[in-house]
C-alpha cells in the first residue's frame, strides 16, 4: 500500500495498577493526545474503541467512554478484540474516503480490576472445554510451549533466555508496567512455577493500561505532524478453535496474516527488509514461535538467534525491543501499544530501547487461546 494512511500521534500508559477509573484514563489519554497535536475533539472524524466487556465487567462497556474520549455527539464504533484490529478498522475507514482522521482508544484494566486469565476462560466452549475443566489460558499456553520446544528439540532454557531479554528491554522502557532491572535467565528459571514448563516470568503480568492513537489520511497527516509513520500493509487470519485440531507448535494464521501484510507493503524478503518487530507474545515461547511465522527467524534456529544476540536491541533482527507483552499486557490495548512502540522506534524516539536502523517495522497482535487469531501490520517512514 502506498503512503495513504499515517499514524500521527499517540498517548499510552501502563502500570501494574494505574489507580484510576476507565473514564479518567480515557480522558487523560485523549486530552493529552489532542494537546500534543494542538487539536480539539472536533478534529477527530471517528473514534474506534477497543475494550472487552468480560474484563470491564459490564455490558457495552464503551458507552461511558464516549464522553471522556471526546466522542460526545460524534461518530464512533467498537471492535471487541485486540486493539490492533481496531487500528485496522480505523485504517479501513480512512481508506474508504469517508473519514480523514480516526482515533483508536484501547483500554485494559487487568492489573487492578480483574484477573486477566478470566478473559480466556470465557472464550472457551461452554459445552465442552468449560465442562472438562482442563483448559485455561495458562494451561493452554503450557501445551503450546511444550509442543513448540519438542518440535525443534529446544531446551527449556530457551524460554528463560527469551524472557530475560524481554524483561531487560522492558526494564529500560518507561512505558512498561513490569520492571525487573537486569533480569537474568537464572532469575526467570527460579520464578514460581505456573503450568510446567511455564513459570511466572515466562508469562505476561496482570497490567493496567491504555493507548489513544490518531490516524490520518496522507493529506491530513501532513498538517498534523512532521513525523508521520505510514501503515504500509496489514493482514489478519484465524484458525480452528479446538486446540486438539491445531498444530500448536506453529502459527499458520500468523503466517497468512503476515503474507497478506507483506504483499500489501511490497516486502519480499522480510528478514532483510524489516528492521524490528513488536510481537504480542504473551508467553515466552510465543516470541520465537510467532517470529518464525512472521518469517523473521529461521525455523529451528531460535536458540542460536537468541544466544548470538541477533534478537537483542543491538542485534540483526531486534524482537520486542520495547520489552513486549512480558513487560505489560493490558488486554485489548496490547496490540496498539506494540504499534505505538514501533512508532517510537521509527521516529527515533525510543531512548534506551532504540534500535540502530529503524525504517520498516512489523507489529503483531493476537486473540484467542494459543493465539488462534493473529493480525500483522507493516509500518514505515
Amino acid at each position, binding site marked *: 500500500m502506498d503512503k495513504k494512511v499515517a499514524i500521527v500521534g499517540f498517548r499510552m500508559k501502563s502500570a501494574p495498577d494505574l489507580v484510576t477509573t476507565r473514564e479518567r484514563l480515557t480522558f487523560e489519554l485523549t486530552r493529552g493526545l489532542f494537546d500534543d497535536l494542538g487539536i480539539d475533539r472536533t478534529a477527530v472524524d471517528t473514534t474506534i474503541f477497543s475494550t472487552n466487556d468480560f474484563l470491564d465487567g459490564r455490558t457495552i462497556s464503551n458507552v461511558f467512554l464516549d464522553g471522556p474520549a471526546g466522542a460526545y455527539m*460524534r461518530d464512533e464504533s467498537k471492535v*471487541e478484540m485486540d486493539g490492533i484490529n481496531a487500528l485496522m478498522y480505523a*485504517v479501513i475507514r480512512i481508506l474508504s474516503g469517508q473519514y480523514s482522521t480516526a482515533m483508536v482508544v484501547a483500554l485494559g484494566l487487568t492489573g487492578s480490576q480483574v484477573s486477566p486469565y478470566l478473559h480466556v476462560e470465557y*472464550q472457551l*466452549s461452554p*459445552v465442552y472445554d468449560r465442562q472438562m475443566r482442563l483448559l485455561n489460558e495458562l494451561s493452554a499456553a503450557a501445551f503450546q510451549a511444550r509442543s513448540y520446544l519438542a518440535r525443534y528439540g529446544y531446551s527449556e532454557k530457551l524460554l528463560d533466555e527469551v524472557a530475560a531479554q524481554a524483561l531487560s528491554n522492558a526494564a529500560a522502557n518507561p512505558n512498561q508496567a513490569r520492571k525487573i532491572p537486569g533480569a537474568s535467565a537464572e532469575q526467570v528459571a527460579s520464578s514460581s512455577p505456573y503450568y510446567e514448563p511455564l513459570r511466572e516470568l515466562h508469562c505476561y503480568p496482570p497490567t493496567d493500561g491504555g493507548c489513544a492513537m490518531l490516524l490520518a489520511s496522507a493529506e491530513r497527516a501532513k498538517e498534523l505532524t512532521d513525523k508521520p509513520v505510514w501503515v504500509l500493509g496489514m493482514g489478519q487470519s*484465524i484458525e480452528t*478453535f*479446538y486446540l486438539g485440531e491445531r498444530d500448536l507448535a506453529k502459527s499458520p494464521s500468523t503466517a497468512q496474516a503476515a503474507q497478506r501484510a507483506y504483499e500489501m507493503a511490497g516486502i519480499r524478503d522480510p528478514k532483510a527488509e524489516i528492521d524490528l518487530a513488536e510481537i504480542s507474545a504473551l508467553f515466552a515461547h510465543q516470541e520465537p514461535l510467532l517470529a518464525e511465522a512472521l518469517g523473521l527467524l529461521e525455523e529451528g534456529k531460535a536458540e542460536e538467534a537468541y544466544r548470538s544476540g541477533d534478537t537483542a536491541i543491538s542485534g540483526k533482527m531486534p524482537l520486542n525491543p520495547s520489552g513486549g507483552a512480558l513487560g505489560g499486557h493490558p488486554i485489548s490495548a496490547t496490540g496498539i501499544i506494540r504499534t505505538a512502540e514501533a512508532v517510537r522506534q521509527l521516529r527515533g524516539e525510543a531512548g534506551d530501547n532504540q534500535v540502530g536502523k529503524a525504517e520498516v517495522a512489523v507489529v503483531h497482535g493476537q486473540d*484467542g487461546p494459543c493465539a488462534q487469531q493473529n493480525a500483522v501490520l507493516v509500518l514505515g517512514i
Partner: protein
Amino acid sequence: MRNVAIVGIGYTPVFVSKRRDVCIPEMISEAVENAFKDSGLTPADIDAVVFGNMQTFEGVNLPHLWSADYIASLGKPVMRIATGGTTGMSAFHAGYYHIASGLHDVVMVVTYEKQSEGDSQVGLMGIITPEIMAMLAAGIDVTGQKGMGAIGGGSAGGISYQASSYLHHSGAGIEHIDAIAAMERRNAAKNPYAHLKDPEATAEKIAQTPLISWPIRFGHVCPTSDGATVCILASEEKAAKLVDKAAWVWAVANCASDATTGNLIEGIITDPAEQMPAQIAARQAYERAGIEDPKKEIDYVEIYNGFAHQTLMFLERIGMCEVGEAHKLLEKGELEMSGRLPVNSSGGVVSTNAIGTSAMNRVTECALQILGRAGEHQVEKEVHKALAHGWGGLMQYVTITILADKPKKL
C-alpha cells in the same frame, strides 16, 4: 469510495424464544448456509468476515473464536464488532467499509443472538453494574421506592421516561402506542422470520395488557429471541457478475451521545426522548446519499423499536415527518404496508429481538423490500430508496443505513 451492494441474505429458519436443538455456532451456521444458497456463493468467494453479537449476553467472550469453524472463516480476516443493540448495523457498516476501502471485494457479515442461553435482564443491568454497586454504597434504594436516584420504571427502566417525554412533546397518547404495537404484530404475522405474531392484533387488545410503568405496557415490549442473520456484501464489479439485481448502499452514518440515564455517579442525564444522535446521524446520512427531502425521497423505513413508541418517536427524529406528526400518519393508515410511508412491515424489533441481529435485520428487511422479495410482507408501493435505523448503547447510540435499487453515482 466504492459502491457496495447486498448480494446475499440468510436467516435462521426461525426466530423463536428457545432454539434447544442447536448450540450457538450450529445456529449461526444455518444462517451462513442460507446466505450462501441465496447468493450462489461458496466459502472460497469470501474475502473477509465481520461478526457481531451483544457482548456478554450468552457468557461467551469473543464468540467468533468458538464459531470460527462454523462461519466459513478459517484462514480469513475476521473482525468482531460490538456496539450493543446496534451491533448488527455496526457490523454491517464495518462490512461496507471493508469493501468501500478497496481492500476487499466480497465480505460476509454474521450476526446472531441466542438469548435463551443467558439472562438478558442481567446482561442489560450489567451495563451499569459497577455504578449500581456504588450507588448502593451511597445509600440508593434500588427498588425505586424512595430517595434520589430512584430509577423506577420497573423492567422497562429508563424507557418509560422516554415514552412519557415523547407523548408529552408530540401530543400523542398511549392509545397510539397501542395502535402501532398492534400494527407491527399484524405485520409480523406475515413475516416467516418474525417471533411474536398476531394477525388479529388490535389497539384494543394491546390496551388490555397490563401496564409495567406508565406509559409502557407488556404489549409494547419486544420479546427475547434466538436467531442469526447473515448478509453478503460485494463491490460493484463483483456484484455485476454475481446478481441481476441488488440493493445498494448509498450512505451509512452513526452518532453517539453520552447519556448516562440511571447513573448518578457520572450523573449526566438529559431528555431520553431527544435522541440528538438520531437527528445528527440521519442528517449525515441524507447528505452522504445526496437526499434533499427524505420525506419525498425515502419510500420505506425500518425503525429499531425495542419498545413500540419508538417507531413513532424515531420517525420524527430522523426527519421522516414533523415533530407531532407520526401518530397522525398512523391514524391515517399511512404507516401500514399499503400506506404512503410504510414502516416496519417486518414487524420490527418489537416483534422479534435476537439482539445481535436486530439492527442488521433492519437493513436486510429494507433490502428485501427494494428487491421485491419480502413475500407476504412486501409493501404495496414501489421501493426505490429505503432507510434502516439502529438504536442501542445505553439509549444513546444510533446508526443509519440508506439503501437504493441502483448504484450511487460516484
